[in-house]
């Protein structure tokens, strides 16, 4: 069962990457990546990294790719109506459906030794890797400030 789910997700990722590479329009490429990252989140969940799988679906598929999609629509300068991106949406529905069915069937870790404890992760970030954590927050602050400066600059 887990093998079947993995190969289904593998096929979805391969199909999404095919659309990403060969689509003629930018927004088709970007939308297909929502399916790729959702399916990849499912693969992580199958490996036992359920928290990371959730992060991938929420952060990558839900936030990063959608931000890209908004810029893609800005680039193309056309409205959303009349766009034929139904194949990409079809892939997204299948990948999210596979993940939901995994949840309903009860996700079992393939590698039994994988620790999925979020508290262990928190202890690691606020203990051993505290400086890395603080440096990362500094980097995010710098990125936010620099993107604001870039956007405010007049040509």
């Amino acid at each position, binding site marked *: 069962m887990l093998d079947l789910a993995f190969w289904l997700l593998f096929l979805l*990722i391969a199909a999404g990457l095919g659309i990403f590479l060969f689509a003629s329009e930018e927004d088709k490429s970007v939308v297909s990546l929502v399916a790729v990252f959702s399916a*990849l989140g499912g693969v992580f969940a199958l490996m036992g990294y359920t928290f990371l799988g959730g992060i991938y679906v929420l952060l990558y598929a839900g936030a990063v790719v959608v931000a890209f999609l908004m810029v893609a629509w800005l680039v193309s300068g056309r409205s959303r109506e009349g766009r034929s991106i139904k194949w990409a949406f079809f892939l997204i529905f299948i990948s999210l459906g596979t993940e939901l069915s995994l949840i309903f069937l009860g996700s079992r870790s393939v590698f039994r030794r994988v620790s999925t404890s979020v508290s262990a992760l928190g202890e690691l970030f606020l203990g051993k890797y505290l400086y890395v954590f603080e440096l990362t927050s500094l980097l995010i602050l710098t*990125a936010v400030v620099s993107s604001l400066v*870039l956007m405010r600059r007049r040509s």
Partner: protein
Amino acid sequence: MSSTALFLLSALLISAGIAGFFVRKDLLTMLLSGEVALSGANLALLVFATRSSPTEAQAAVIAILTVAAAEVAVALAAIAVAIRDKGKATEDIASEMKG
């Protein structure tokens, strides 16, 4: 699901990312190709570390994701500026964007 299958998936993601970076001409999909390749590298890292230190690998992947998200914020701003100034965001515009 064996480690070999996971490495195969990782190789697929990295190859597609590298191919996309060189095949596509627009900055947006070139940047996204980098993200795809990075995801493949994350997957390989997790598979390698599963037997020894899975929690630390998970922490490393989350740190990588955060850095990638910061990179995306700056790159999207640069692409939006390129669109505003030049009307397009293709690879030939990138060479004109030096400070």
